C-alpha cells in the first residue's frame, strides 16, 4: 500500500471519481446535449455565421473534448502529489 492510511486511499479514489464524473458530465452536455438533443433549439441562435447547435456538433464539441482532457491531466497530477502517489 503506497498510501499512508486506508482512509487516504479512499479519499484519493473519491476525489478522482468526482473529477472524472464532473468532466464526463460536461463531455455529455456538449456532445449529446448541445450537439444532438437540444440541437433544434440551439439552431435558433446564430453566432458568427453558424447555427449554434450545428457548430457544437461539428466544431465546438471537439474543442471542448481537448480542454477536458488537459484539465483532467492537470488536476490528476496535482491530486497524485497531494496524496504522494505520483511517479518518481
Amino acid at each position, binding site marked *: 500500500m503506497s498510501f499512508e492510511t486506508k482512509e487516504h486511499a479512499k479519499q484519493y479514489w473519491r476525489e478522482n471519481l468526482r473529477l472524472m464524473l464532473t468532466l464526463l458530465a460536461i463531455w455529455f452536455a456538449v456532445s449529446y446535449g448541445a450537439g444532438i438533443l437540444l440541437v433544434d433549439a440551439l439552431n435558433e441562435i446564430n453566432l458568427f455565421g453558424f447555427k449554434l447547435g450545428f457548430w457544437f456538433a461539428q466544431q465546438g464539441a471537439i474543442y471542448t473534448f481537448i480542454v477536458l482532457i488537459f484539465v483532467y491531466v492537470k488536476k*490528476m497530477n496535482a491530486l497524485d502529489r497531494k496524496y504522494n502517489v505520483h511517479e518518481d
Partner: protein
Amino acid sequence: MDIQTLTYILVGASFALYIGIAIWARAGSTNEFYVAGGGVPPVANGMATAADWMSAASFISMAGLISFLGYDGSVYLMGWTGGYVLLALCLAPYLRKFGKFTVPDFIGDRYYSQTARTIAVICAIFVSFTYVAGQMRGVGVVFSRFLEVPVNIGIVIGMFIVFFYAVLGGMKGITYTQVAQYCVLIFAFMVPAFFISMLMTGNVIPQLGFGGTVEGGVYLLDKLDGLSTELGFAQYTEGSKPMVDVFFITAALMVGTAGLPHVIVRFFTVPSVAGARRSAGWALIFIAILYTTAPAVAAFARVNMINTINGEDGAGTLYTDAPSWISNWETTGLISWNDKNGDGRMFYAADDRNEMSIDRDIMVLANPEIAELPNWVVALVAAGGVAAALSTAAGLLLVISTSISHDLLKRNLMPNITDKQELLFARIAAAVAVVLAGYLGINPPGFVAQVVAFAFGLAASSFFPAIILGIFHKRMNKEGALSGMVVGITFTAAYIIYFKFINPAANVADNWWFGISPEGIGTLGMILNFVVAFAVHKVTGDAPENVQDVVESIRYPKGAGEATAH
C-alpha cells in the same frame, strides 16, 4: 513537371523516409517489439496514435461523406473524437499502471481466466482483420488513381513497405514511422484546405472560413442551406436521421473507439501513468486538426461543386464549358453525366432534374484540381492518402501478431518459450498477417467494407464494459464479465447480421428496435453487457481477495514500471 512525375517523386521520397526510420529503430526484444520499450515520449506517442487512428477512410472519405450528409455527418466527427475523452479519463492511465502488453492480457489476468483471455484474443483478431483488409484496399486505390498502376500492384507495393518496417521494427519501428506519416498526411490535408478556404471566404483558416461569408456577403452555411432546399435536398445544417439514431450511432462510435485494441495498446508504450493521460490529450489535438477541418472542407467543396455544375445562375453549365477536372475524373468513374433532357447542360439535384452521379470520395481527391491548385499539391494528396492507409495498417498488424505470439502462444499454448523465440514468433506472425491482409485486399470478400463500420459496435459491446468494470468495480467477478461480453457481442452481431446479410430488405427504420439502426446497435449491446454482468455478479459472489488487491493497486500511479510480461 507533370502530376505523374511529381507524384512518383513525393510518394517515393516518403517511402524512403519510412524505410530509413525502420532500419534506425529495429527492435531487439519482445518489450521493444510489443510496446517500443515503453519509452516513447507522450507528444510523439500522441502523433503516432493520431496516425494509427486516422485511416485512409478518414483522409479520403470522411470530408466527402459529411459533404453529402450535412448535419447527419456529425456522428462521425463527435463519435471518433469523443472516445478519446473516455480513453484518457477511464482507461488509459489504469491500463498503463497495470503494465501488460495487450488488452487480452488485461482481461485474462483481471478476470483470472484463460477462457476470458481466449475470447478476448478472438475478438481482437477479428476486429483487427476486418479493419486491416480495408486499409490495404485503400493503399491500392490511392496507387491506382494517382500512379495509374493496377490496384493489385499497388497493394503488393504497400504490403512490401509495411512488411519491411512492421516485421523488422515492431512497435518501435511502427511508432516512429507513424510520427513521420502523421506529418505527411496532415500537411497533405491542410494545404489544399487553406487554399480552398482562402479562395471561397477570404479567410485562410478553414475553421473560421466555415462561418465566413462568400461572394455577395451571404454566410457560407446560409448559402448552402438555400442551395440545398432549392435543389430538393434536406437543409445542410439540419439532419434527416431520427434523433434517437443519431444519439445511438454517436455513442457506439465513441465507446467503440475507446474499446479498439489497436488504440488502447498505444497507451502501453509511454513511460508513465501521467504520460498516458497526457498522451491521450496530444493524440486528440493531432486528430482534431484534421477532424475540425474536414467539415469545413465538406461545406466548401459542396458549394463549389454545385456552383461549378449548376452554374452561378442555377441554370446548369454547358458541358462544353465545364472545367477540365470533370472530364479528368469521368475517366475514373467517380463522376458521370447523363444528359436526360438533351440541353447539353449539366444539372445536379435531389429530384428528377438530376443528371449527375458523383462519388463522395471526389470531394477530397479532386479538391486541389477544383480549386486550381498547383500540381505539387495534387501529388501531396496522393502521398498523404498512402501515409494514412499504411500507418493504420501497420498498427493493426502489430495487434494481430502480438495477439498470436504473446496472448495465444506465450500465455496459453507454449508458456516455456524464451524471449528470443517469442520475438521470432511475433515476426513470423506479423509476416503471415501482412500476406493475409494483402490477399484480403486483392480479393476483398463482399462484406469487408460493411463490416469495418460495425467493428466499432462489436468493440463497444464486448471490450469496453469488461475493461470499465475491471477497473471501477473491483468486486466484479469472471462469471459476470464473461457472460456480459458474450451476451453483448452476440446480441450486437446478431442484430447486424440479420439486417445486413440475412434480411437486408427489412433494413428500414420501421423494423428497427426503438428506431436504432445496425450502426448504432452497439450502444444497446453495451448497455445489455453491463446489465447482464451486474445480474450475474449478484448471484455468483465477489472476485477473490488477491484480484481485488490488484485492482486497488492500478488505481494510483506510484510504482508504475516498465510494461512486463509477468
